């Protein structure tokens, strides 16, 4: 009887040991291989947001250097590179007041730039400082969420720095189609895709060619899409 109990106890112990070892083995190599697999194709991706996500995830989960990740990082613009650091900080759990903290840290030196992107939601009633775009340019679609096709970038300049970009709102008091397109982006994507720098009064929004052709041209959008800074 004692032998039987001993045998059962040993068998159970062995099973538990094997199970935990298998779990440990299964966890880390999967993570590494997933990161390595994505890192290999990262530089070739068209969507910069996806590239940033891969780099951020790699930086968070791996302490090793990676040639592929470095190549991928080099393909980003300065704005996007800065965003990598902001996102890593946020992922690590100390990014809640990053803008404030960096401002405090730089009191004795030049102010760091705080770049980023967000979606500006639609406001049925816009309030605060209202601006329409003062200029626009066309590029290959790397800044819009889709990351493909032609896109139109519109620049808005406010009287002071946009220190709280999440408070920005958009609508069009003068054109139903532009207003409808902004509302459409809010319903589907959370708002108009915009890029900001908290140490600058200028923000840029990007709009796809579908919206521009639907509202009747780039000039119509430029003159009628308004952004509000409370």
């Amino acid at each position: 009887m004692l032998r039987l109990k001993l045998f059962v106890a040993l068998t159970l112990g062995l099973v538990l040991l094997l199970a935990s070892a298998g779990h440990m083995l299964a966890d880390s190599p999967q993570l590494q291989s997933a990161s390595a697999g994505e890192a290999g194709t990262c530089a070739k991706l068209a969507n910069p947001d996806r590239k940033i996500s891969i780099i951020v995830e790699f930086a968070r989960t791996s302490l090793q250097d990676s040639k592929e990740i470095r190549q991928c990082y080099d393909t980003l613009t300065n704005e996007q590179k800065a965003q990598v650091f902001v996102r890593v900080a946020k992922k690590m759990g100390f990014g809640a007041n990053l803008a404030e903290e960096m401002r405090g840290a730089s009191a004795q030196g030049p102010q760091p730039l705080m770049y980023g992107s967000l979606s500006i939601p639609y406001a049925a009633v816009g309030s605060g400082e209202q601006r329409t775009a003062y200029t626009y340019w066309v590029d290959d679609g790397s800044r819009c969420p889709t990351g493909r096709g032609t896109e139109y970038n519109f620049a808005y300049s406010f009287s002071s720095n946009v220190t709280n970009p999440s408070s920005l709102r958009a609508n069009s008091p003068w054109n139903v189609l532009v207003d409808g397109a902004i509302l459409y982006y809010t319903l589907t994507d959370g708002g108009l895709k915009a890029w900001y720098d908290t140490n600058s009064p200028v923000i840029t929004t990007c709009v796809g060619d579908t919206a521009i052709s639907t509202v009747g041209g780039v000039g119509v959008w430029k003159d009628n899409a308004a952004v509000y800074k409370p």
Partner: protein
Amino acid sequence: MSYIGSIGSLACVAIILCSLGATIGSILLLRRTNEKHLIGLSLLAFLLALIFTPILRILPEEIGLPFFLLAFMPTLAILMLSLGASFISLVRTRARIAFLSLILSLLAVGLFVVNTTTPLIWSFRAY
């Protein structure tokens, strides 16, 4: 230039159309409708509230944007019409079916608001 409280033109049109549509439509509808039509209208409103946002978030932008511009106002009109007609019918007849219709219309409006303003039930479009 700075303005305080600039109303979006679509919101402005929607408010006017919905107010007028709900009032006039409810009166016209109630003169020549029965309880079955009323519950049918509420069901239609609920169905639209259920599928409108998910369809928008699934469709590609090339189809989704024109679809939204065409379908947004009619959807709002049906929701408001259903709510208005159910409310007037309940006040007039105090029938159980009118009460059910009103509850269904309120649920439809609530679902529409939650669906369109948050990614709570249907997440935003992913690329």
